[in-house]
Structures are given as structure tokens and as C-alpha cells.
């Protein structure tokens, strides 16, 4: 699924559980062992190279070219023409950027804090905490495509649950939540938050369990209230988890695709950068160069959280 495939980065475990010197050097190996090890490294690396790294580089290359996607020989370089189109002429580009920003803002301001709140409440000694956790976590198991369908039943103009609850069903005031371009982005975001909050909750529950209990005791002995203890002591102590949550939230808002594609193929108010890439790929006329230029814009933006995450994870590892 296009769910965020990020696990909690393990800065703690990575920070030289074994100092490199204690790991085996290749010199000590026999020739046969070296060959075996070489094959074990080569196969996954080759798969990564062929299916991930080379296509990514090819996206960059094709973004400076003109190609109809037929024969390789028909690829022609055309400089920055594609980018000029993307930034200056494409009517969908800036709306898509705006929607991606709105996506991020909504998850960052509502989805993620809600997940944190649920985690903090459920981390207390509460009866039935497992049942609550199971309920909040349930949507995380569902694909975003399916979530789009399930919420369609809630949002539908004539037969949706929401309009019944608002008492507007059947009247002219009934809103078509997924169809009306002034509300459908927010409707989709509510559905996405349904899933996102549970995901964040489970990650923060793990993070909270990792906080040394003596920190809380010390804080309450010093007379700190519950709120103070959380914001001044517990939350900063979860720094590694917080970084991952930030990265997940950013990457998830860049990866958003499935749900809008299921709703209406990402049109009419639901344009996103990821959708624009696909539109130029599956459309009637394949304009590979322009699709690739959109892909490169998405790549460059994505590299910001990725580099942040990797530098944090792997620099502590090397120390």
C-alpha cells in the first residue's frame, strides 16, 4: 500500500550496539565465504538499483526530454521546456501544490496531535484501554482506497449518513461532500485523518512506553502538574519518536494519492502532485517529459524530509 512504510527509526539501537571494530572484517573470510556474501549483497542491491534507483534517475533525465514513450530512439532533449510548462503554464500545478500543503497542514494541526492525544490518554491506567486502542487502530489496517469507498457511503449527497445527520438530506442544501470542489479536499482529509490518527497513536504509545518512568516521578516530586510534566519532561524525552512522526506526517502528505484517485481520479478540487504525474502517464497522449518534470518536483520536495530523517538516524549511528 502507499501507506508510509517508515518504521520507528532506531537511533537508540543503532548507536553502535556493536562498535564497528568488533564486527568481522572481510579479510578474515575464506574465498568461498566471500563469494557467498558477495551474492547475498549483490541480489538485493541489483533489485534496488534496477527497480528503484535507476528509474528515479531516469525520471530526472526524462524531465529534460521530449518523448512519446514509443521507441527509445525517439527521445529528444529539450532543455527546461517541460519545467517552464510545469511552473508557468500548467493550470493544475499550483492548485496541486496548494492541496499538498493543505494536506500537510491538516495532518500536522489535526491528525497528528489527535493521535498524540489519544496515545497520552490511553497510556494511563484506564480500564478497557486495549479495546479503545483496537478501535482507533482499526482504520490503519484498511487501504486508503477502501477508506475512500467507506466514506463515500457517509458523504454521498442523497444517501450519505452525514447529510441525514445534518438534516439536509433530500433538500437542496444537501452537500455533495466528495463532489463539491470547495469542500471535497477537507472531506477527504477527514477520511485520511481517520486512518492517520490511529497510526500516530500506536507509534506514540510505543514512544511513551520508552520514556524512563523515573523522569515523571522526579518531575512530580518537583511539584510539576500533569500538563507541565508532559510538555516539559515527557514530550522532549520522546525526541527520536517526534522526529519520526514529523517525517511520517510530511511524507504521508506527499504520498497522498490512493484516496483522491478513488474518489474522482484526483480532479475537480482534489489535484495533488502525485496525481499529476500519473495523469501524464496513463492519459491518452503520453507526454512523458512533462510527467517526469512533475515527478522531479515531487522528488525534490520529498528529499527534504528523507534527508532530515536519514541524517538523524545514521549520524547518531556512526558516533
Amino acid at each position, binding site marked *: 500500500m*502507499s501507506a508510509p512504510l517508515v518504521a520507528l527509526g*532506531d537511533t537508540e539501537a543503532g548507536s553502535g550496539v556493536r562498535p564497528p571494530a568488533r564486527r568481522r*572484517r572481510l579479510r578474515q573470510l575464506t574465498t568461498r565465504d566471500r563469494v557467498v556474501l558477495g551474492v547475498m*549483497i549483490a541480489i538485493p542491491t541489483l533489485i534496488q538499483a534496477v527497480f*528503484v534507483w535507476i528509474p*528515479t534517475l531516469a525520471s530526472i533525465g526524462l524531465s529534460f526530454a521530449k518523448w512519446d514513450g514509443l521507441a527509445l530512439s525517439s527521445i529528444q532533449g529539450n532543455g527546461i521546456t517541460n519545467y517552464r510548462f510545469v511552473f508557468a503554464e500548467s493550470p493544475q500545478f499550483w492548485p496541486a501544490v496548494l492541496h499538498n500543503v493543505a494536506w500537510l497542514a491538516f495532518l500536522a494541526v489535526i491528525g497528528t496531535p489527535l493521535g498524540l492525544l489519544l496515545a497520552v490518554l490511553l497510556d494511563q491506567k484506564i480500564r478497557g484501554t486495549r479495546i479503545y486502542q483496537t478501535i482507533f487502530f*482499526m482504520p490503519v489496517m484498511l487501504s486508503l482506497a477502501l477508506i475512500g469507498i467507506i466514506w463515500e457511503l457517509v458523504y454521498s449527497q442523497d444517501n450519505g449518513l452525514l447529510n441525514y445527520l445534518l438534516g439536509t438530506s433530500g433538500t437542496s442544501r444537501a452537500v455533495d461532500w466528495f463532489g463539491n470542489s470547495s469542500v471535497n479536499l477537507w472531506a477527504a482529509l477527514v477520511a485520511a485523518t481517520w486512518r492517520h490518527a490511529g497510526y500516530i497513536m500506536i507509534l506514540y504509545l510505543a514512544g511513551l512506553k520508552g520514556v524512563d518512568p523515573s523522569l515523571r516521578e522526579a518531575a512530580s516530586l518537583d511539584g510539576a502538574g500533569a500538563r507541565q510534566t508532559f510538555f516539559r519532561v515527557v514530550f522532549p524525552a520522546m525526541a527520536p519518536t517526534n522526529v519520526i512522526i514529523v517525517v511520517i506526517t510530511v511524507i504521508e502528505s506527499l504520498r497522498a*494519492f490512493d484516496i483522491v484517485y*478513488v474518489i474522482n481520479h484526483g480532479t475537480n478540487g482534489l489535484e495533488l502532485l502525485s496525481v499529476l504525474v*500519473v495523469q501524464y502517464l496513463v492519459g491518452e497522449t503520453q507526454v512523458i517529459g512533462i510527467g517526469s518534470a512533475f515527478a522531479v518536483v515531487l522528488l525534490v520536495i520529498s528529499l527534504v524530509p528523507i534527508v532530515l530523517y536519514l541524517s538523524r538516524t545514521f549520524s547518531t549511528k556512526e558516533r
Partner: protein
Amino acid sequence: MTSTTSTATAARPKDGVRDSAVARSRSKRGGNFWATYLFLTVMAVIWLIPLLWAVYTSLRPKADTDKYGYFSIAGHFDLGNYLQAWTQGGFLNYFGNSVLITIPTVILTLLFASMMAFAVSRFSWRFNVTLLIMFTAGNLLPPQVLATPLFEMFKLVQLPYWLSDSGTMLNQLFSVVAANTAFQIGFCTFVLSNYMKAIPIELSEAARVDGAGVWTQYWGIIMPLTRPALAALGTLEVIFIYNDYFWPLILIQSGNRLPITTAINNLQGEFLSNYNLLAAGAVITVIPTLVIYLALQRQFIAGLTLGANKG
């Protein structure tokens, strides 16, 4: 509680001040306590509504909802929508495709990722950290970034017809397996290498002294010890791949070769204006994940948070 406190205060007037302070703090905690429950329960109900609404709608015949409206309790309940959706929607075929994609992908991903993780975490060689970083980075990219060249590449590859009836890598289930495997290897390598690092190096040393080669160390010693992580990751990956919508959308052109998650799109068109059928279809699609979730919840969550608490 209030009455006991007041009698206590009456009995021991000297301690009155302190007692009432305790009572106040206690009742305050009580207030928070109930507010927490209230909030959680309201949220839980809101969280359940979309799913319960789908289940409720799916159990009602179309004739009844047409007559009474969807927002009603009149009429009767049966499984008619499920039967109709199942036969009309071709679910068996879609589920079959999902299985044919999911199982090979998860096995291959865990196999290759564990080999790489073993090599990275148990031996030190020049580019091991660099490669691990590249693997992890690849997994974090939005798949759309590399979808176009991958599609064109699959289109250009010429395959014999006994291997692929399209003559290329397009419209083949194994291409979806390849794309998914490549995308998941990075994540699994990262998680497994963290896990394997925590296994004492002395175990490998002892095996080496006994004459065990690299493969024996990997398959005979490290892999059995990594079993908990593999189980957790395996569960997680089954859900991830089953839920993958994007790669089949791009790589598969024939509708009857789609896995269920991507085929949902078609159902929406097919069952248009029949929300009862659509709801039944959605519930049918949820069932496999829900079964896995309820049976293997612990594994799944362990997979998601693996690394946070170090295995």
C-alpha cells in the same frame, strides 16, 4: 465519597483543612477521569460509525432502503447483497490475484532483506552504511516519482510468450511482485539490520570456530534468532501488499488481473447508485485484513513499532 469525607472531617476537626484538600484533589482527579472516559468513548463511537454504517447498509435489501431511506431502521436484514456482490463483482478472481501477488512478494522481500541485513549488520565492509542509507531512502520516496520510467522500462522489456502473454512485463502479476518487492526491501532491510545488530557477535564467532561458513551462519544461526522480527514484519508486509493500490493500477491493464484493492475502483463503477451492493463489496474487502488484524494484532503492531523498543 463526599459523604464519607464529610463525616471524617466532622470526626476530626483538626485535620479538616488537609482532608478537604485531599477530597478536592480527589474529586478533581475524578472529574478528569470521567472526562477522559467520556472523550475516549465519544471518539471511539465516531471512529466506529463509518464501518458500522457500511455493515448496516450492506445487510439491508435495496428494496427496503429505497422504500424507507438509508437512514431508517425499518425493513429486514439478510445477506442478499453479499451474495449478489460476490457473484456479480467477481471477488473470487480478485482475491486470487491478491494472494498471487501478496505471498510471493512477502517471501521474496523477507528473504532478500534478511540477506542484506545480515551482510550489513554482521560484517563491516566499505560501502555497507552507504548502501543501507540508499536502501532506506528508496523506500521513503513516493512511488509516483519513479512510476513513469518503471512503466516504460516494463513496456520495453521483451519476453517470450510462454512467460508473458503480453510479450512485455506489462499486465503481468509478477511485475507487480517485482515492483512491490523492490519497494519493500529497503524498509525491511533497515528494520532487520537493527534487529540483527543486537544479536551478540560471539554467536557467529563460535559458529565460525566450529567451521560454519557464511551461509550456515545466516541460515542456521542468525535467521532462527530473527524469527520474532520476521513474524512481525511478515504480518505487516502482508497487510501492506494486500492494501497496495498503486502498482497494479499502473502496471496491470486487464481488469480481471487486478488484485482486490485496486479492483475496488471498478466496483464503484459497477455498483453505481446501489449503495447496498457497494457497502457489501467494501465489507467483503475488509474481512481478510480484519481477520489478520484481530488474530495477529500484536505482531502487526510489533512490526510497526519495531526498532522503537529494540525488538
